[in-house]
């Protein structure tokens, strides 16, 4: 790229920070391993809890202020996620799904919040923990509702001619019990990591171009413009990924409650 060549001829080079610098954080409080990611996780609990606590203190029938946000989120999770994926008898899973949504959303949105600028879900720790909890939940719900016959129903779906079980059962086993949590976690993780790397790239480019000779200032329009545009895009992607994570968890729970086949 001519940009790099121009920079090199001036004696320097465009240096990208290494990936570990982007995603690994030093411990702030050393003995308990509390780093920036852990801080974001704790804030993902404190901020929603604060909002909902303040909301529940209003006693009027008509919500106003912060209670609108709280009730709006509950309505969103109920109408768009539970009713679509599980049906009316899924209302008892509202606390879990709401917690998923808020936790993942807050973990994602810190990517664009100025002090943090790092999505907590760009480290695979968070998504893996959440995906394992969702995995345990849907297997647990299946076993609780259908007994051990749940495994038989999933691995040997009725309506399939018995000769095909040799083919179908390994696929079902792999797909339902091994790949589901993996894809559930990786979808969220990879989206956030890719977004973070993209934003860092544009940031580094912007800084580099800003420090160059004045004749290159027109390039700043593209790099800074790209940074702004991708920040907006990442806000959107944060919301979408939180929604997709939650609705997928709901679909798995619904699939365990009423096996479709």
């Amino acid at each position, binding site marked *: 790229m001519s940009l790099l060549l121009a920079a090199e001829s001036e004696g320097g080079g465009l240096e990208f920070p290494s*990936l570990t610098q982007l995603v690994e954080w030093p411990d702030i409080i050393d003995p308990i391993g509390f780093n920036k990611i852990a801080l974001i996780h704790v804030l993902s609990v404190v901020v929603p809890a604060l909002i909902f606590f303040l909301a529940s203190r209003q006693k009027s029938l008509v919500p106003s202020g912060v209670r609108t946000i709280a009730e709006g989120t509950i309505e969103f999770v109920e109408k768009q996620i539970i009713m679509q994926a599980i049906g009316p008898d899924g209302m008892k899973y509202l606390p879990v799904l709401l917690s998923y949504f808020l936790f993942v959303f807050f973990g994602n949105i810190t990517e664009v919040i100025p002090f943090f600028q790092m999505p907590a879900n760009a480290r695979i720790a968070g998504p893996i923990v959440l995906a394992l909890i969702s995995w345990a939940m849907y297997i647990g719900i299946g076993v609780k509702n259908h007994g051990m016959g749940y495994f038989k129903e999933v691995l040997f779906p009725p309506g399939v001619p018995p000769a095909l079980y040799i083919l179908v059962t390994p696929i079902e086993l792999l797909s339902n019990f091994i790949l589901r949590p993996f894809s559930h976690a990786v979808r969220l993780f990879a989206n956030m990591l890719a977004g973070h790397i993209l934003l860092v790239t544009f940031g580094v480019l912007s800084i580099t171009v800003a420090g160059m000779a004045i004749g290159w200032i027109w390039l700043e329009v593209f790099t800074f413009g790209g940074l702004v545009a991708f920040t907006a895009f990442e806000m959107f992607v944060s919301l979408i990924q939180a929604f997709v994570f939650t609705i997928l968890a709901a679909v798995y729970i619904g699939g365990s409650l009423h096996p479709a086949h």
Partner: protein
Amino acid sequence: MSIAAQVLAQLDGAETKAAAAAEGAGFAYGLAAIGPGIGIGYLVGQAVQAMARQPESAGQVQTTMFLGVAFTEALALIGFVVFILLKFA
């Protein structure tokens, strides 16, 4: 990397590994992005058509479209993870 390329470039063992990793990484994501690209394009096109046929269902169709896009994109991003794994580890 092929032996001829290694010999010509005068690379040693560790550098060969790094070079092969970089090559594989580039191919990994590039090829992984083809399928989801086609899939997402088709999906959004069908969603737009559905919205044009029945404007009242536009909200529902839009939500389902985002859901589908996220699922399809996951496959491309698994390729991205492979890229990260090869390049940085």
